[in-house]
Every structure is written in structure tokens, then in C-alpha cells.
């Protein structure tokens, strides 16, 4: 079933449709109605917690210790956090992790989407199978990869030993652990990239591709110079969403390394969860959350700027 312009034209041209002219709603009314429910939901769900977050970030207070009166420290929490080298280590590690997992997700994801571009026998089922990893519960994924990366009886080290390499301590050394967890995260979310990238690639009109081939372009050339550039917007959106999620990752680290050894594999989000729930330092955790939010926000702006420039180009 083609979904395209000519189809649309056909629908409108058909005689049976002529009777169905609907009453007009002005564009601005429609816009308001379309946006309203989302705004309402956001107002309900975001307003109170966000206000609380800001309020507590200026206090030294633990909700678990109401016996200790809150102390107004203004920007004190922020200063404490930003001058703590430990916090910078966490952010540096988080950044490294995001880069590592995103690089895997994207190279593998785009490659796989390239392969799923065209129709072939059984593509439906194979595509669903390819999407499976992201359907699993994240905690289970953490345990699965902890099991597979175990240095003694893990599948990965067994495969590695088949290649004649000595057993690697994947989870006990932070340099290896970074990649081990990145692989686990990429394994889970590459399907996300594949799904959106495939959607983009399959949308390229056939005649554009065909005309490129007629001009003598190889499939690779067509892919890199036609398909990929045209699908860039949706891919950038996928990238943006993945970066945001990768910054929040800590469940995998909880299951696989516990943040250790020492605190070397503790991401910013992991620190945040310890502060918020482990120590229950509500004030400090709120400030940290806002710092993290600003970082992710800043990064997202880069992507969004790029996206807008892309759409202006087209």
C-alpha cells in the first residue's frame, strides 16, 4: 500500500469524497487544540516536582531527617559539587561512556538499517528479531551481560579464549568495564537506531534511487550521497534521544560493576541516585540533578541547532 502524494491526490479526487467536506476550524484553533492536552499533561506532571527540585537545591536538607532543620545555602550546594574533583571525574567518565556506546550504536545501527532497506524474503520476521534486544527489561540485561562478561565462566571470555587471547578481567578493571557496559548498552539500544534509520532509508523515493543508479552510481555511493543525507533529520533525532538516555544510564552499572572498583565506573546518574536515595541528601541531590540537567540540556541544544539548520537547508 503506497503512502504518497499520488495516493493522496487520488483520495481527494474520488467522487465519493466530494460530499465529505467538513466544517472549517481555523488553523490557530486547531493548533491550540492539538497542543493543549500535551501542555496540560506537562503542567500536571512537571510543575510540582520541578518547583520542589529547585527549592530543595538551595537547601541543605534531608527529607529523611525532618529533625534536622533545613539550612538555606543559596548556591552552596552547587559550589560544593562543582568544586569537588570527584564530581568532575564522574562527568568525565559519563562522557566517555556516552561516546563509547553511541559510537557502537550508530555504526552498527546504520549498517544494519542499510541492510534492511529493501524488501527481501522474511524481512518482517528478521526485522522483528533484530529489534529484540531493546524489548528486554534493563535489569535483566544488566545481569545477562554481567553473566556473559564474568572473567571465569562468561561466554565472552570463552569466545575470546578461542581466539587464543588470555582471559580479560572485564568488570574489575575500569578501562575494560567502560567498554563492557558500553557494549551492553549498545546491544540494547542499537535496535532503536535501526528502527528509525530504516524508516528514513525506506522513505527515499524509488525513482530518486533509480535515477542515481542509471547515472552509474554504486549502491554505496547512492547510500552515502543520497539516502543518508536525506534521512539525516530522523537520524539526528534518534541520536539526540539516545544521547539523552545514555546520560541517564546507571542500572547497567549497578548490575555489572557496582560503580567499582573504588568509584571508577560511577556515572553521574549513579552518583545522583546514591545522593538522592542512598544518603537521602535531598538538597544536594536536587542541585546535582539540576547540574546534570544543564549539561544534557546544553548538549541537546547543539543537536537541535543542527537539526534546524538541516531543515532550513531542505
Amino acid at each position, binding site marked *: 500500500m503506497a503512502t504518497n502524494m499520488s495516493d493522496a491526490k487520488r483520495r481527494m479526487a474520488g467522487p465519493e469524497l466530494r460530499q465529505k467536506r467538513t466544517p472549517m476550524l481555523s488553523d490557530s484553533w486547531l493548533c491550540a487544540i492539538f497542543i493543549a492536552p500535551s501542555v496540560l499533561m506537562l503542567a500536571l506532571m512537571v510543575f510540582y516536582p520541578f518547583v520542589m527540585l529547585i527549592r530543595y537545591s538551595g537547601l541543605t536538607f534531608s*527529607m529523611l531527617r*525532618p529533625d534536622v532543620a533545613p539550612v538555606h545555602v543559596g548556591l552552596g550546594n552547587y559550589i560544593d559539587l562543582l568544586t569537588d574533583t570527584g564530581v568532575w571525574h564522574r562527568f568525565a567518565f559519563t562522557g566517555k561512556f556516552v561516546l563509547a556506546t553511541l559510537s557502537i550504536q550508530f555504526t552498527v545501527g546504520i549498517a544494519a538499517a542499510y541492510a534492511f532497506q529493501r524488501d527481501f524474503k522474511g524481512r518482517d520476521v528478521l526485522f522483528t528479531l533484530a529489534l529484540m534486544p531493546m524489548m528486554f527489561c534493563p535489569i535483566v540485561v544488566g545481569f545477562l551481560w554481567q553473566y556473559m562478561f564474568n572473567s571465569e565462566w562468561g561466554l565472552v571470555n570463552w569466545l575470546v579464549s578461542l581466539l587464543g587471547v588470555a582471559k580479560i578481567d572485564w568488570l*574489575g578493571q575500569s578501562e575494560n568495564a567502560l567498554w563492557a557496559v558500553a557494549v551492553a548498552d549498545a546491544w540494547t539500544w542499537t535496535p532503536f537506531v535501526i528502527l528509525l534509520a530504516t524508516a528514513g532509508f525506506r522513505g527515499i523515493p524509488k525513482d530518486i534511487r533509480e535515477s542515481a543508479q542509471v547515472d552509474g552510481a554504486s549502491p554505496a555511493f547512492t547510500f552515502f550521497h543520497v539516502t543518508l543525507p536525506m534521512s539525516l533529520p530522523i537520524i539526528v533525532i534518534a541520536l539526540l534521544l539516545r544521547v539523552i538516555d545514555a546520560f541517564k544510564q546507571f542500572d547497567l552499572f*549497578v548490575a555489572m560493576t*557496582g*560503580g567499582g572498583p573504588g*568509584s571508577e565506573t560511577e556515572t553521574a546518574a549513579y552518583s545522583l541516585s546514591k545522593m538522592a536515595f542512598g544518603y537521602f541528601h*535531598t538538597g544536594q541531590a536536587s542541585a546535582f540533578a539540576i547540574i546534570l540537567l544543564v549539561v544534557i540540556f546544553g548538549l541537546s541544544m547543539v543537536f537541535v541547532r543542527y537539526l534546524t539548520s538541516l531543515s532550513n537547508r531542505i
Partner: protein
Amino acid sequence: MRLLSFASMRILTAVAGAIGFSAVMASTAMAENLTFVWHAGTCSDLFYQISKDYPDKNIKIVPDVVPYGPLWHDKIAAQFAIHGAGFDFAMWDSQSTAEFAGGGHAYSINKVFKESKYLKANLFSPLSLKLYGEYPDNSGKYWGLPVNQDAYGLMYRKDLFNDPKEKAAFKAKYGRDLVVPQTYQDAKQVAEFFTRPDKGLYGWGQMGGRPYDFATSASNPFLWSYGGELWNPKTHEVKGYLNSPASIQGVQAYVDMFKYGPPGSQSWDWDAVNSAFQQGHLAMAMQWYYFAGSNSDPKVNPYAANTGFGVTPGAIGLDGKFRREMMIGGQGIGINVYSKKIPEVIKYLEWFYHPAQQKRWAAVCQTGLLSVLESPEWQKLNSYNKSFTHAMTHMHHDYWHLPEYPQLLDILQDAVTSASSGKMTVKAALDMAAERQERVLEKAGYKITRTHNIPAVPNEIVNPVGSDHIIKESYD
């Protein structure tokens, strides 16, 4: 056949309806749910099973059980933080008592002792009450009742220790008899003897994982047995205690023992220790008594018939004194002060702590009820109960009983795992931890008064437990 006239039929249905309706209304009006939070396990399963036999049928005990891990603490903490009644009572780790009681979220057990006709302090072993419910230390104020007592003990392969060939080889090599070690110094030798990687056998297994309290639960018994201290509870000092020569010696001994465990065991939790032992890879292992039951089950542990349980070794410190200090575990039951059903909870606990229920309980989990603990039948119930009573005599030390416990624990876990992974020396790690912990205490408002001339073995001035000669414990 119309036995009843139409009118009487209607009257009858109306009456029946009224009776039924009021019965439903009565039962739903009267039925109360008492919710409890605990982590999943054989004990919570058993608790729920026992609760089904509660004679008052208007009360229903509803479990809100979480996986063992951070969520256990977080869930309880979250309810307390909002003064919520999401649960009526909960079992929390003994280490969390200070945090929850300190915030005023737990209902005073002293009040329970006063109000209840049956629940009194003398029902429980004083040590249990102290360990699982008292805050602050030595205040006589209780906030929890012991529900599951635990200790970090030793398990070992009896067949390896009793094997004549092994005994002969050991005697030839080390010049003394092969026995389950009484000191950590001895343990090193025995572990070395049994470490045969090519045969898949290692001498010693212990926890080393970063999450929660895994590493430090294993390193603390070493630290305390060598005469070290985590801090000085009276002066709030950490420097000079945590990084004293005795503490460093103890933690070093702990780190050294990883040589005799499988590679990668530095990140082990209690499950990994169990797995390795159950596959026959370990000659000795430190493990919670909680798992003694499943490790005695041949279905779980193929070596169950040859598995012995006992107390962990002691050590001779730099001052020449012998100490055997064990790590405490376990939980207490606390009542949520914001619950609207506290009288019902107390009534339920009165029933639960009756010897009849506690005998059922003790079959699987460690009871705190004195009458059951001291009964000969409990002692003979299995191979480890007797050993557990012994273990309780070696518990003079615990983590910090402060609301700041989570942070102090995290810092120590960081330090110990850094040391065992080789990233830092033990001294550097403990120095760093002491510095950071004192900062936490200062920020929390504790005044630190400095002691002059802290001895190399700080236990000498903090609740001394050393003896001049080795006190041997028996291992079957």
C-alpha cells in the same frame, strides 16, 4: 410445585439479601490489611506463610516484597520521607536503624514493651535487642525487634580437612597438623596449601564487591580481629583509628587472601561465593549463616554432606593479644510511626513472637526469642545453630550506628575495593577514607575531639576485647 407463596418468596429473598449484604459490609468494614516491606527470600516467604495462620481472620498480612539490593532501603526511606503509611511495619537492615530511628520514623519499642502485656524486653536476648534495635548506642531506647539474626561465618570442606593424604602432605610441608584455622595467620597457610588452580581448587573465598556492604562486611572481621577500629564512637575521631597500623594490617590481610581465591573474586558478592563453593572450587569460604540452610541442602549444594560451619578465625595483633571479632548481619522489625494501624501491628507481633510461631520461624531463619534460642532442640536442629550461638559471643563491633551510615559505608567500600583491585595501597586507601569520613561527620555536626597518643592497636582504648592467649573454637 409451589411450596412457598410468591410473597413469602420475596420476603425470604429480601431477608437473605439483607443478611448477605450486612455480612459483606461487616467483613469489608472489619478486614484490615497490614502491609510489610522486606526483601525477597526464604525468610519473607516463611513470614508470609506463618501469617496466614493468624487467628484473627479480620487481619490480613500483605507483603510488599522487593529484590535484595538498594531498592530495599530506598523504598522504606521514601515512605518515611513523605511521612507515608505505604507500609505498616518493615524489616530493615540493622545498619539502617540509626538512620530511620534518628529521623523519628520508627515507633518506639519501649512504648510497645510498656503497652503490651506479652512483649517485654526480657523475652529477647539482650545482645539481640541491642544489635537489632537500639539507638543511640547504650541508650536503652529500642526501635526494632530482632527478626532475623545473622553473622558472617566460615564454611569449609570437611572432606578436604579430614582426608589423610591431605593431612600428611600439610604436616610435611608446614610441620603442624591440618586443622580449620583459629587465626587469620594460620588461615593464610591453609589457604595457600589448598590453592591449586590447575585442579580448579582454591583455598579461600570471600566477598569483595563494590555494591552495598559486600567488601567491607568481609574486611571488617579482619580489621577488628587485628585490633583495629573503624572510629572512636566517643570522640568521633576516624583518623588514627581507621588508618591505624592495626587496621591497616587487618585490611592488608584481607586483601592478601584474594591470592588464594579464583581470579576476579575481588568483585564477588555472597552469591558468587556460594556458586564457587557449591561447585567445589573452595576449601574455605566466609559466608553468612543465612545461607547455611541452603548450603546444607544437597539439592542446592552437591557438597552439603561435607560442608561444615563455624566461626571466622581470630588474629594476634601487633600488641600480642588475640581477638576474634565477627561481622553481624540480620534485620529487625520496625513499626512505621505514621501507620494508622499500630495497635493491630502490635497485636500481630505479640502472636508472631509466641514460642509456637518462633519455633516454626527458627527452622529456617534465626530467631531472637530467648526461650527458643536456649532450647536444646533448637541447638540440635541442624549443624550450624550451635555454632551460631557461639558466633554471638564474638560480636562486639558493628558499623557506625549513625544516621550518616550510608555515606560512611560508601566511603569505606570505595577505599577497600580500591585497595583490593590494586589501584591504591591499603594505607593510602584508609588514609583517604579517614579524611573523607571525618569531613562527613563534621558536616553533619559532630564535634571531633582529638585523643593524644592513639595506640597502634586502637582497640586497646575502645571497648577492648583482646585476650592474652588464643581462645580456640571447635570445628566438627
